[in-house]
């Protein structure tokens, strides 16, 4: 009887595993966020990127996660994902895209994420002690600037040069929509290669805020526009 039952269990298990694989395949799901990030990169025809820099779950959306990795010295690869059926991770599509490659080759790379309201980036110089990110609206954005208000936030890079500023809008006192302020600079600074000017592949990419890195004695080491 036991042997008969073991055979039946094996058969049912095979059916369940096959179904699970087909279901995951059909819905683009993975068990781990990193695996999904690399699978998305492959689907976008680049990668795998070097290493995961950030796995971030925003406070306002606990079922979501932003995964960011470094693509050599050329920029970042990011994927926005969501919890699916409580067990898997699936891509979260915003404007038809779940992520992409952001080319940033300055010595200080800083990216603003709308979905998570945070700034992340890297500093190449190992001497960098602090990074000042400026959110002053660009010329022609139509947003009024309050001369008495400090539009900067500071971050401390870790030993790998990675830095992060969370809840940017809140830190700026909710003065204005940070994303809107930077929209004019989107296409100029963050255009991935091979993205067509029009059509279905156009992706809304995060803007690049202006960032400066300083050493411990206050010397300017580099900016996000220095190359």
């Amino acid at each position, binding site marked *: 009887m036991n042997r008969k*039952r073991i055979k039946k269990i094996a058969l049912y298990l095979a059916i369940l595993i096959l179904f699970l694989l087909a279901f995951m395949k059909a819905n683009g799901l993975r068990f781990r966020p990193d695996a999904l990030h690399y699978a998305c990169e492959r*689907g976008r025809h680049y990668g795998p990127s070097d290493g995961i820099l950030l796995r971030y779950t925003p406070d306002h959306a606990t079922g979501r996660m932003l995964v960011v990795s470094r693509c050599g010295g050329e920029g970042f690869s990011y994927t926005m994902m969501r919890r699916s059926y409580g067990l898997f991770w699936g891509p979260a599509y915003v404007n038809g895209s779940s992520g992409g490659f952001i080319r940033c080759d300055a010595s200080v790379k800083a990216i603003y994420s709308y979905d998570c309201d945070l700034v992340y980036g890297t500093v190449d110089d190992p001497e960098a002690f602090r990074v000042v990110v400026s959110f002053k609206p660009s010329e022609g954005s139509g947003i009024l600037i309050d001369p008495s208000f400090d539009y900067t936030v500071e971050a401390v890079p870790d030993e790998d040069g990675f830095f992060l500023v969370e809840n940017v809008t809140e830190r700026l006192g909710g003065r204005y929509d940070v994303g809107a302020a930077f929209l004019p600079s989107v296409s100029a600074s963050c255009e991935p290669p091979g993205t067509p000017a029009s059509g279905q592949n156009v992706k809304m990419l995060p803007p690049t805020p202006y960032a400066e890195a300083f050493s411990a004695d206050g010397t300017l080491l580099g900016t996000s526009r220095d190359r």
Partner: protein
Amino acid sequence: MRSDAWDAYLDALTREIRYRPDRAAIRREYEDHLQDAFDALREEGRSEEDALSNAVANMGDPAEAGRALNRSHSPLLGRLLWLMRIAVWLIIPAILSLVLQSSVMLIHVLFTASHGYTETDAYGALLDSVRIGETVSLDNHVLTFDEVRVYENGVYEIRYRDRIRLFDPAVDLSFALGPEQISGGDGSHPESVAFRRSGVSFYNVNQHYFCGFGRTPDRLLIDFDRSDLYKGRSFRITVDLAHAREAAVSSSVREVDR
């Protein structure tokens, strides 16, 4: 035929079996054995009472038989099988839905494959048609470039099929040629006019219309290059348009000669 001794035997036997859902089936089986033994003894000419007591006695020690049965009816395996059965029954609607979805997609693919490309006269008469017949692999995509067509209004059309390899680990499944991946012999890029796609996610027939080269191109380059983003994701296809035009001209001359 039932008796107290008979019931007592079966109770003692099944009490030893820890996995309760199996008890009823085992009881029924042993009841049949007892009935067979009882009938055989009756046929031998034994009295009813004698046949009953002998049938039970011949079955041996019920506790010992029950313990032997218990060993071959593991509660763990029994419960696991029960859970598996429930899980399989629960996913049957989902399996049916997947099968239905796949069938619809398969029908769609067959329909797309049989109908192929859509003809259009929106860009004037067809002037030229060049067969490409090249297949390239790009991650989970198998792209087959079939044909370039040239229309009267200066519109070029690239026809290609895009098949997605099943069970490939990639998730985002987009591939579309952009104007910056297409160029004429002089390096000028066209403007995209229209894009037509028919099919389903894993099999698409694509028609890309574009115009606006600097001059009439002698050759067409389809140059997809993401090799700067690791692992040499690139391919390049060159289509000789001049040769095709000459061939088209000479064939029309031959037509006239005839």
